[in-house]
């Protein structure tokens, strides 16, 4: 009996010792290492910024490449990344960027001015789908081995924010030329994580870049983007520990995620939902009708019931994280009396009937539309809803065969010029296919692009937001948070409004 007791005690001692050892090892492991698995609803299409269209590819490119500048943590301005300093000429027509020394691509080859010139020359190509972000930039040249010059046809205020977008990512010229048509699949950047493999439709595996220019980073050994198409399945895999981060969490699953111990990370103010009306269809050509409908939208209760509080009523067509956002530029609120009053002044004082299209599978937008339809009925407007398969709905919109479209806007650059340039300037896309045509607004959009004085620019964009709330070419609904569910073991995960995950600052506890 004694022996047994003794044995037990030794066992206990051993267990304690092992426990101490294990926790010490665990503590050490918390400092570096680990594989982080991120579940996303779809795969990427390419690593080539020039051919990129979808968010997943954009976010991934923001992870594997660096750019000359990056957004600051608060998202309010830009700070150096691959460029250490820059100087804009007094006339605003040239900008010189001094490149950081000692930056290497994944294969160890140095990043040179030539790589920057090559990457940015492709970025500013006006025949590419992102050239519009850099439209006044005419050329990119190397002044010397460590200086790159951008030349513009006119002063261009959004230059720095535009250079922080995925479209201005810097990659290796030698690799791009070597890969030829496969360049979109075999990238070579300077980011903290490099591509190990891409098993299409399944996962993208990134591994730590040993040549990363930021000393001591990253902490993680590997980052894996796994495709998990089903919303519920993403939450389950997080709960079971198969993944550590689930992206695109639908608002109605937030409680379920926190219930299973996950933390919620949100990026508020990066996207705004809005309704586009086709002004070729009567009576949507009348501002009074559009604004009456805008006043009949109960943004508060939509944020509460449809988004479970993970949204806030929008006060502008600009997402609130946008530079020069103004939440006090005559925002439209829920006011049925005002709505009736406006409608009474229109050609359809007692109301009318129409059909709006909602993409199938988008239960959130469908609920928004249903709540809206109920209050529209109170001012005499009957809105019937028709669900159309997503790509078909897109086609109807692109060819302007839609009546009303429910969608959202996410900024790629924090500069307001991107959204204002396509929404309120009717030239590039017919006012986001609304046929809204306002010369005053167009003039302001063009002026804002060239104003280098922030105070002056603020005035311009406040005025533009005021016009948007006066004419209601787009009816803004709510600001949607981008929601992530994150396992408690993950530390330092703070995605920004552009969708950049910044995994170089993330670590994991075992």
């Amino acid at each position, binding site marked *: 009996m004694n022996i047994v007791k003794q044995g037990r005690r030794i066992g206990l001692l051993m267990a304690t010792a092992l426990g101490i050892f294990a926790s010490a090892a665990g503590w050490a492991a918390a400092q570096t290492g680990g594989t982080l698995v991120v579940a996303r609803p779809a795969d990427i299409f390419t690593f080539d910024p020039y051919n990129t269209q979808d968010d997943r590819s954009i976010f991934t490119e923001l992870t594997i490449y660096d750019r000359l500048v990056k957004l600051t943590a608060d998202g309010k301005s830009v700070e150096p990344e691959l460029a250490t300093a820059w100087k804009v000429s007094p006339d605003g027509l040239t900008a010189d960027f001094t490149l950081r020394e000692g930056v290497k691509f994944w294969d160890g080859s140095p990043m040179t001015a030539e790589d920057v010139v090559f990457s940015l020359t492709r970025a500013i190509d006006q025949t590419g*789908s992102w050239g519009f972000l850099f439209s006044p930039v005419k050329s990119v040249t190397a002044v010397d081995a460590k200086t790159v010059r951008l030349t513009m046809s006119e002063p261009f205020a959004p230059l720095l924010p535009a250079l922080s977008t995925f479209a201005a990512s810097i990659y290796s010229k030698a690799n791009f030329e070597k890969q030829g048509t496969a360049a979109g699949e075999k990238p070579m950047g300077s980011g903290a994580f490099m591509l190990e493999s891409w098993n299409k439709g399944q996962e993208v595996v990134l591994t730590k870049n040993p040549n990363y220019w930021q000393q001591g980073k990253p902490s993680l050994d590997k980052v894996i983007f796994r495709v998990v198409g089903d919303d519920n399945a993403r939450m389950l895999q997080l709960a079971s520990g198969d993944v550590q981060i689930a992206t695109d969490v639908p608002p109605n699953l937030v409680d379920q995620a926190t219930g299973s111990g996950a933390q919620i990370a949100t990026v508020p103010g990066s996207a705004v939902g809005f309704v586009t009306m086709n002004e070729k269809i009567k009576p949507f050509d009348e501002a009074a009708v559009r604004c009456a409908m805008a006043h009949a939208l109960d943004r508060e209760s939509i944020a509460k019931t449809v988004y479970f509080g993970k949204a806030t009523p929008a006060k502008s067509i600009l997402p609130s994280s946008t530079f020069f956002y103004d939440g006090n530029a005559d925002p439209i609120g829920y006011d049925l009396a005002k709505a009736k009053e406006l409608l009474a002044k229109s050609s359809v004082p007692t109301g009318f009937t129409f059909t709006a299209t909602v993409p199938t599978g988008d239960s959130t937008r469908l609920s928004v539309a249903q709540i809206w339809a109920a209050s529209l009925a109170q001012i005499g407007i009957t809105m019937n809803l028709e669900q159309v398969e997503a790509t078909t709905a897109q086609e109807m919109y692109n060819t302007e065969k839609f009546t009303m479209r429910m969608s959202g806007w996410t900024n790629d650059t924090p500069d307001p010029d991107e959204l204002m340039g396509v929404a309120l300037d009717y030239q590039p896309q017919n006012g986001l296919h609304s046929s809204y045509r306002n010369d005053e607004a167009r003039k302001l959009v063009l002026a804002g692009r060239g104003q280098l004085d922030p105070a002056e620019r603020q005035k311009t964009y406040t005025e533009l937001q005021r016009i948007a709330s006066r004419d209601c070419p787009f009816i803004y609904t709510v600001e949607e948070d981008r929601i992530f569910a994150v396992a408690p073991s993950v530390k330092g995960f703070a995605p920004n409004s552009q969708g950049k995950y910044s995994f170089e600052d993330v670590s994991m506890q075992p």
Partner: protein
Amino acid sequence: MIRYIAGRFLQVVPVLFGVSIVVFLLVRLIPGDPSVAVLGSRATPELVARVRDQLGLDLPLWQQYLNYLSHALRGDFGISFFYQANVWDVTIVRLPITLALMAMTVLISVIIAVPFAFISAVRRGQLPDHAVRIAFTIALGMPVFWSGIMLAYLLGVKWRLLPIAGPGHGGVDTLVHLLLPSLTIAIAIAPIVVRTLRSSLIEVLGSDFVTTGRAMGLKPRFLTLNYVLRNSLRPVVTVISINFGYLIGGTVIAEQIFSLAGVGSLLIGSIGTRDYAVIQLATLIFALLVVLVNLAADVIYMVLDPRMALAR
């Protein structure tokens, strides 16, 4: 028999040809083409024109089809617009996991169905029979996307018995990873098998040769396995081969839920993105599978029931 099988093989050709025409036209009838799917709201007329030209979508339909056919006959099924790669390469790598999933589903369905069908048939009209029939009717009513999520939650998250994500690392690990997805689909397939097997068993149990066997004093176990079961299985093979298309539908959903990169999830994704070439090849593969399974079913009949071979 060999001539018969060869003849059946030849019938595959017109079937695949017909499927290729129907699918080719169907995908082009859906409004919105790949340029819209890939360019989204940023589609300017110039970009759309460039993409359409790249894909040869400007040609008349019949010309597009002939182009497709002449290339397909030479083994070139085109380029996936989204993956920017040969469609064959994109699709074929995903086939093994889908085939494994289907095979396991059939196996699990039969393993579940046989004992319950037996209980039901032997205790016909009694409580166990009613219980089995009610339980399987409920199972039949459960949509795969729901039962999949529930199984993943219960067996994967709550009790941590089985993995719920991905295909594993090959071998036994992959089989373990496939358990939940195949069980999910099997729950939808098994009720059909139970129902068929039950009535077939009842018929066989009442037939003269069983009575004779019993009268001759054959051991019940021997009688059941060698006479009753074997003679009852033929309708089961029929019902599984007929429902094979339904099973394919199940794999499409299960692959989505359990993160398996198979042909089913590829097909669904490609319909959303209008990746014509992928849709065409994936449906051809599925059509071929359905035809081959039905052919295999015929062969299995002959093994199970030699009278069939004699009749021919």
